[in-house]
């Protein structure tokens, strides 16, 4: 309860017409962003607790990547192995196309909860995306796969492993240009 109060209150603030329509002064808009960011971070703790209770075992060390919308995620870019858990908040099964930012010259395997390898595709990021001002990321491509049948109000976890000694991936999907000034 305590951890989700901040987001409840912030969502209340966001009902103000300036927050909805974008007519706030700039420093107020910046403050809205700060409030939301901090409140969402507080809620993450609760999300982890809920997932732990669904899983029946301690899911420790969970993180989120709020900058995935600009193709930036420290975990998917740097970790050799990690588990991606997808929680479906809808009351029916859904399919999600996962896009994870990765460095352009590495290959990964993805294993689903049943131990099956999932078909993956590496798609280079367009140069305008790579060059967005303020983006600090080593990712020049995205690892894309289809997460099938996420259960209603439930989760599925995928084991993602970087291939260190395997063949480099298909050049056709990995060609990248060097950023220019």
């Amino acid at each position, binding site marked *: 309860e305590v951890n989700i109060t901040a987001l409840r209150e912030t969502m209340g603030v966001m009902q103000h017409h300036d927050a909805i329509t974008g007519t706030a002064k700039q420093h107020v808009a910046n403050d809205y962003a700060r409030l939301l960011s901090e409140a969402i971070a507080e809620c993450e703790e609760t999300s982890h607790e809920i997932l732990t209770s669904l899983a029946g075992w301690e899911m420790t060390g969970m993180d989120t990547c709020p900058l995935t919308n600009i193709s930036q995620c420290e975990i998917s870019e740097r970790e050799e192995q990690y588990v991606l858990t997808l929680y479906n908040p809808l009351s029916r099964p859904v399919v999600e196309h996962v896009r994870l930012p990765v460095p352009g010259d590495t290959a990964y395997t993805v294993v689903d909860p049943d131990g099956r390898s999932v078909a993956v595709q590496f798609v280079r990021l367009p140069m305008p995306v790579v060059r967005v001002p303020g983006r600090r990321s080593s990712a020049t491509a995205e690892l894309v796969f289809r997460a099938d049948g996420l259960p209603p109000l439930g989760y599925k976890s995928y084991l993602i492993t970087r291939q260190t000694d395997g063949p480099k991936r298909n050049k056709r*999907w990995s060609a990248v240009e060097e950023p220019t000034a």
Partner: protein
Amino acid sequence: GESSADLGDSRLGLKLDDKDSRRFVLYADGEEYPLVQEFLYYKSMEGDNKRDNRRASGAYIFRPDGDPVPVCDAQKKPKRFFGLDRQDRFGVRYTILMDCPISGPVVQEIHQECNEWVSQVVRKYADEDHIEFEWLVGPIPDDSIGKEVITRFHIPFYQNNQTFYTDSNGREMLKRVLNYRPSFSLKDNLENVSGNYYPITSRITLTDNRTRFSVLNDRSQGGTSLQNGQIELMVHRRLFFDDAFGVDEALNETAFGMGLVARGQHYLTMGPVNKQFAVERLLAQRKLIRPQYFYTRKQSVTSHDDLK
């Protein structure tokens, strides 16, 4: 190789025109429709706000100055090369970096660069019933000319009788008729563009009673249909004048000393009326209430058994 750029299949697909990167052929349920998708901008009205006709476009009002201007070179020939190794006439090997299309088992994409500040990816995931347009707009140039950038989808000859539908906060769809208000007589619409703009919180739809053509968005935007077969959505604005309605600032947000860059998605669906209601509703739920992602770094998990 260098074959034509296309996405999807005959159930739902797109084929890019050979000569003009704005033009597509849209395939939906075995039928073909010409589709034009382009980025344009409205030049924002300047003014000192002392008289009605000298009111500037700003945070509170959208007041364009004239017709929209295309952002991109209309006749720009689409690039369509893969990252293939080639050899020039001197025997030097070089690589042509692909621009489009990208094709694989999960997704097909066409990457398009319009100019230095507008680009997009058009993509179709296998077995999906929509086409995604991921736009990237900004930083809008700091040239003292306010710009309100739109993306416009147009199916020529589509007969929607100047009527379109927009959602009301993601719930029911409301009927909108060009230059018409249901509750009063609209005599002179002095603002022919903004007077027909409506909030689009999840989707905007056209129908000819046989098919439905919809664009769903990932965030609230302003949008309209100013001509039959046309849908436009505003994706970004950078203005240099205050409209004197109270905010007392021009809508000119910057980061890193430049105008903001905005990135988002539009989802295009098209098909028979009886099927499309379900397609749109389910797609809106999936895209607006997306799964949450949690990452667990390597600790004890090293194999599938550990994962289980």
